[in-house]
């Protein structure tokens, strides 16, 4: 959560995350450029600039695959959520690796000529009419531009400036970048056939990401298809059984217009919030009540249960809904109250009263 924007808000977990990433990147490049030539005469015979292009290019593609795998993995198993927390750093690192690859290409294949490098990049191969031999470099340029734009706008400042829906829509461009990278690798290195691993990794990446996204999509559709029933008398939405809500957790229902609502149980009281975190639209309902706040599982953004507002000095807010208990069922009014409206949590009949003051008003900044 933020009240001011710093270039990077470091903490211990982010440092560990980035250190592991950096170790992986350095190990990959060192092994490729230093160890492999010692082990193979074929690698030794390849020019060093071309070896560098291959090393950084293949690494960028692997990292991009990993970036795209984190989302569905985290949807399918909450143990992968820590990967999501710092995913933007992985994205920025991927853009940096891809940029390095592009610079090596530009300074070798398109250099040493009377034609300027960038002109040569766009004009030296014009075989647009055929698949084999198509100027696959252009797909690489397209992917790189997207990666650089996303990296440049990855900071929370841009998220706030552009608004979460616009920022999120823009950052979905990562899929266009991946599609372009697949074409870049497929029409270039893979179709060339000089390294069988390229085609193998390309196929494995496509297959793994397709399966993961289909599974995650099926799960999301299943949540929406478990249509929350509308109570005929009140038009409120029956989001589930009271005993299905664990202490400190929530159940997620679907309102008639498709918006998801999360009903939290905390100290035997119920509160209903929008399931969409105002930060990156993360699924608050899959989070937990921590120190009395509904806490988003993605980046730990927190909201008060009674009014959906982040505690001061933070200013994020989510929609709040009225909730009631009917027998053993939990019902939610599908009409949200105005942002920031305070609604007292509903006490569960027969439950022991809370031992401490029910709702906090302040918390420590992350």
């Amino acid at each position: 959560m933020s009240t001011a924007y710093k270039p990077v808000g470091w903490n211990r977990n982010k440092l560990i995350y980035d250190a592991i990433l950096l170790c992986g990147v350095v190990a990959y490049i060192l092994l490729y450029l230093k160890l492999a030539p010692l082990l193979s005469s074929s690698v030794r015979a390849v020019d060093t600039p071309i070896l560098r292009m291959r090393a950084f290019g293949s690494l960028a593609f692997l990292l991009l695959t990993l970036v795209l795998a984190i989302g569905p993995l985290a949807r399918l198993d909450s143990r992968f959520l820590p990967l999501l927390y710092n995913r933007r750093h992985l994205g920025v690192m991927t853009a940096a690796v891809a940029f390095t690859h592009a610079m090596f290409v530009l300074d070798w294949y398109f250099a040493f000529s009377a034609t300027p490098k960038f002109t040569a990049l766009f004009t030296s191969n014009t075989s647009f009419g055929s698949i084999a031999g198509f100027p696959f470099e252009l797909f690489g340029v397209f992917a790189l531009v997207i990666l650089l734009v996303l990296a440049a706008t990855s900071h929370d400042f841009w998220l706030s400036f552009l608004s979460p829906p616009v920022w999120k829509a823009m950052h979905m461009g990562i899929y266009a970048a991946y599609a372009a990278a697949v074409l870049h690798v497929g029409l270039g290195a893979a179709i060339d056939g000089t390294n069988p691993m390229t085609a193998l990794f390309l196929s494995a990446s496509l297959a793994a990401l397709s399966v993961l996204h289909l599974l995650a999509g099926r799960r999301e559709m299943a949540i929406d298809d478990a249509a929350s029933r509308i109570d005929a008398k009140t038009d409120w939405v029956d989001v589930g059984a009271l005993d299905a809500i664990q202490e400190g957790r929530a159940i997620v229902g679907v309102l008639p217009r498709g918006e998801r609502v999360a009903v939290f149980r905390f100290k035997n009281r119920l509160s209903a919030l929008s399931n969409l975190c105002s930060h990156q639209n993360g699924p608050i309902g899959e989070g937990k009540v921590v120190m009395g706040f509904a806490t988003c599982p993605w980046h730990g953004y927190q909201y008060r249960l009674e009014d959906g507002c982040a505690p001061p000095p933070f200013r994020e807010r989510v929609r709040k809904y009225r909730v009631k208990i009917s027998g053993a069922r939990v019902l939610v009014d599908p009409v949200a109250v105005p942002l920031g409206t305070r609604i007292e949590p509903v006490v569960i009949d027969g439950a022991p009263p809370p031992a401490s003051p029910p709702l906090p008003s302040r918390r420590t900044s992350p």
Partner: protein
Amino acid sequence: MMPRPPDPGFFIGYAKKVPPEIAQCALLVSVFFLLGLVSASLAFSLSAQDPGSGGYVDELKGGRLAGVLETLPYPILRVPAQDGKGPRAIMLSGQGKAGVANAADPLAGQWAEVSGIFVKRGELDMLLVGGRNGLAGVEPPAGAVQPQAPVALGRWRLTGEICDGKCYAGAMRPGTGLAHKACANLCITGGVPPVFVTTSPVEGHNFLLMAGADGGPLPRALLDHTGLLIELEGEIEQRDDIMIFKVETPARPGVAS
């Protein structure tokens, strides 16, 4: 709805404490990530094909080579037999991705001396003209003989790859294939002599200097086919130890692999 895995605890990125279950999982993922990258790095790098044995050879060691300069389809120095060697036809190229047509054209058909360094791969020799007065006209030596006229070897249909002769010979390794296509086009348009690397030898040669059907430089339309396995048809002529393939457009995709 799909069953959810058991609650492993709750991770908050900025919190100092990480639940043990999450920490264990993160450790496993980290190990998997690092081992995965290490394996991928070695798998990618070690499965690379050998780019061939071409490379730079300083055969002249600062000396100069004299012969008759021919400029079509590309500058060729016809060096007479000497030192027990037969007559040679040596392709000439410039520094970087440039040929030497500008310097060679005024000397067409005349005696010239060149200095520079060779790139060689198998029987492919290309002299990269360089040094002071890298290419200069000279008086014919006493008793100089004119090069033999080209020998026509008939019409051929060949399968192979169009490469720029300089990189194929070893200026870049590998100087072949699709990844190198745009670079090769840049070389060829810059005047570097293109060669056709055949899948099977022609009269003992597995590369031929390329020319248009009229004996001039390679038609630009054929640049769409560089870096690809294609089938080409045309007349072949021999000048000393070099074969020249006068190709006709259009090319057809090759059938071999």
